[in-house]
């Protein structure tokens, strides 16, 4: 009886004691849940704000879904990153790992030198950048795994000894196979490569540190050796070289940098330009490829889809329809080397006549706009030759583009009357879709 009483008492005591405990548990659980929900909510809110920033500033290149396929993506080199892949060149994390938030924030803030990615720190606020980074991360499932950060040692300060050791490492690791013995391609086995999306990617010119994507301090350069550049042929050398060797190599790399043109004397500028001219002469196809891209030939001579993205595989294949009022319809020509539908059967002189005189093979004259042949006619002869040399090498794409169709006399005269006397604005309309017939399929 006494025993049972005691037992009962102890149970009562326990009950009394357990009540605050349970309460505490509930409170802690609630706080924890609230915190988790709160963090998730904050993150979702940041992503929501980030999406607004993204849609306004980033989608033109990186595309509406971050796949690197925005309207302007096909015209820039290197191509914009596919943000859904989770692969990033500029990281402070191990090979195969995603970058840290700080890596991403830094790339957005300072841009990627030598590419079309600008420094956003002058335009976006810090919180905008944080938000857009949060949104960017949500585009790729790879960010479910936390980044594996590289532990950076103190490094080796630059000295003549370190640089000379670095040069030996450069030889040992055979960097010259891609970057040349002098860092700018001389004696390289190959300098033209492709990235993970089969887009052309030349080996970096190591004498132009202002084009190093992630910066040109020895720490930046060391990180590129250590982590590799995901999506490019540049591997990680963490296995092949010791930490000290990579620091020496970084110091050597920084020492290779030449003066940029904006700090040169007149003599140095003259020497640089003379060298560039000699190189253009030695490799006209490369020079021509640069000119065809840089003169925006690609923008009109490639058809686009509804979102104004270049149709895949149709670079320079023509077929973008320009309706130029009051003159008529002018589909852009197929500039590939296809014999049937492209320039394959044109002579060099016929191609040059279009570029410099706006006169087609059959004598039809083109308007001086938008095909700006009056401007192109001011080019040096060597550059015009280089463009023709390059166009000969463009892989053939069969796309039969109809010839220009001029308007009938009466609508044409009325259009000109409207333009010249009534002061109207007759538009040039650029249409989506391909005006040509792909391989005669349609």
């Amino acid at each position: 009886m006494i025993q049972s009483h005691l037992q009962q008492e102890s149970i009562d005591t326990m009950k009394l004691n357990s009540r605050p405990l349970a309460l505490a548990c509930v409170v802690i659980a609630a706080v924890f849940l609230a915190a988790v929900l709160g963090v998730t909510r904050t993150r979702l809110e940041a992503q929501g704000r980030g999406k607004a920033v993204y849609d306004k500033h980033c989608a033109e290149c990186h595309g509406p879904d971050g796949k690197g396929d925005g309207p302007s993506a096909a015209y820039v080199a290197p191509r914009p990153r596919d943000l859904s892949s989770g692969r990033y060149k500029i990281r402070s994390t191990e090979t195969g790992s995603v970058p840290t938030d700080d890596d991403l924030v830094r790339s957005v803030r300072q841009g990627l030198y030598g590419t079309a990615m600008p420094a956003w720190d002058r335009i976006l606020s810090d919180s905008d950048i944080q938000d857009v980074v949060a949104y960017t991360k949500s585009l790729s499932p790879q960010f479910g795994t936390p980044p594996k950060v590289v532990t950076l040692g103190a490094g080796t300060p630059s000295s003549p000894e370190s640089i000379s050791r670095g040069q030996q490492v450069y030889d040992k690791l055979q960097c010259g196979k891609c970057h040349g013995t002098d860092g700018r391609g001389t004696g390289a086995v190959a300098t033209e490569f492709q990235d993970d999306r089969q887009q052309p990617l030349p080996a970096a010119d190591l004498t132009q540190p202002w084009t190093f994507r992630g910066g040109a301090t020895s720490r930046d350069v060391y990180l590129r050796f250590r982590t590799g550049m995901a999506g490019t042929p540049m591997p990680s050398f963490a296995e092949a070289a010791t930490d000290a060797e990579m620091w020496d190599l970084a110091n050597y790399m920084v020492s290779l940098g030449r003066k940029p043109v904006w700090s040169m004397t007149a003599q140095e500028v003259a020497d640089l330009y003379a060298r560039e001219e000699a190189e253009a002469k030695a490799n006209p196809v490369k020079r021509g490829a640069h000119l065809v891209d840089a003169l925006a030939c690609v923008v009109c001579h490639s058809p686009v889809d509804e979102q104004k993205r270049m149709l895949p595989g149709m670079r320079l294949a023509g077929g973008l329809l320009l309706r130029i009022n009051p003159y008529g319809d002018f589909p852009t020509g197929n500039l590939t080397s296809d014999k049937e539908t492209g320039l394959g059967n044109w002579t060099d002189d016929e191609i040059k006549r279009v570029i410099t005189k706006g006169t087609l093979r059959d004598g039809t004259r083109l308007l001086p706009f938008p095909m700006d042949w009056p401007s192109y006619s001011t080019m040096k002869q060597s550059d015009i030759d280089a463009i023709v040399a390059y166009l000969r090498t463009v892989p053939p794409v069969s796309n039969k583009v109809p010839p220009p169709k001029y308007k009938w006399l009466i609508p044409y005269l009325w259009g000109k009357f409207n333009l010249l006397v009534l002061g109207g604005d007759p538009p040039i309309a650029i249409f989506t879709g391909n005006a040509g017939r792909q391989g005669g399929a349609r």
Partner: protein
Amino acid sequence: MIRILKWAALVIVVLVLCALGAFLYFIPPFFTMSPEDFGKAMAQAAPGVEGITDPAERAIAERGRYIVMTAGCNGCHATNGPQGPDLTKYLAGGGLKSKTRQATYVSRNLTPDKETGLGRRTDDEIKRVLRSGVFPDGHVVPTTSMPWGSFSIWSEEDRHAVVVYLRHLPPIRHQTPEPVFGNAVAAPAAVQEDHAWKDYGVGEAKPLR
């Protein structure tokens, strides 16, 4: 007698209409100028760099002039007069109105005027447009309206040369309208460009020196 007069009047009307038609058909500049003259006019339109005293800067500006001239900046950034592009007002803008599904743009004044041209922009701001299509207010212009995607292929040194050259153009005061955002073109056209022989800028383009 009256019948003869009627016939004569009819003939005169027909002749006048024909003359008007022929006038409209042949009016310059299209097709009445030889291609060589077109090219010559373009080469002479771009102001030279002889006035630059610093020899390094002069060499760089010469490179910039070559790029500006051959890339056809003046194709869009010209100022139009009643006879088409006015080549004496080189790159003073207003010659073209480009409408997309998102916005309407007017080609800007690229001369170094401090109030209406690039004089109010830093070198970095100009280079950012040429490299990334991003304007100081943060909006991104489509490559199909301003082909910056292609100009981003220029090396950073060439982009610098272009900016140096633009800084040495004769300044012209010519206000051009800021972009207006809002749907301006309906599908299926991707872009519509108004290219009349008139100036889409505000007021007359006035050379400052």
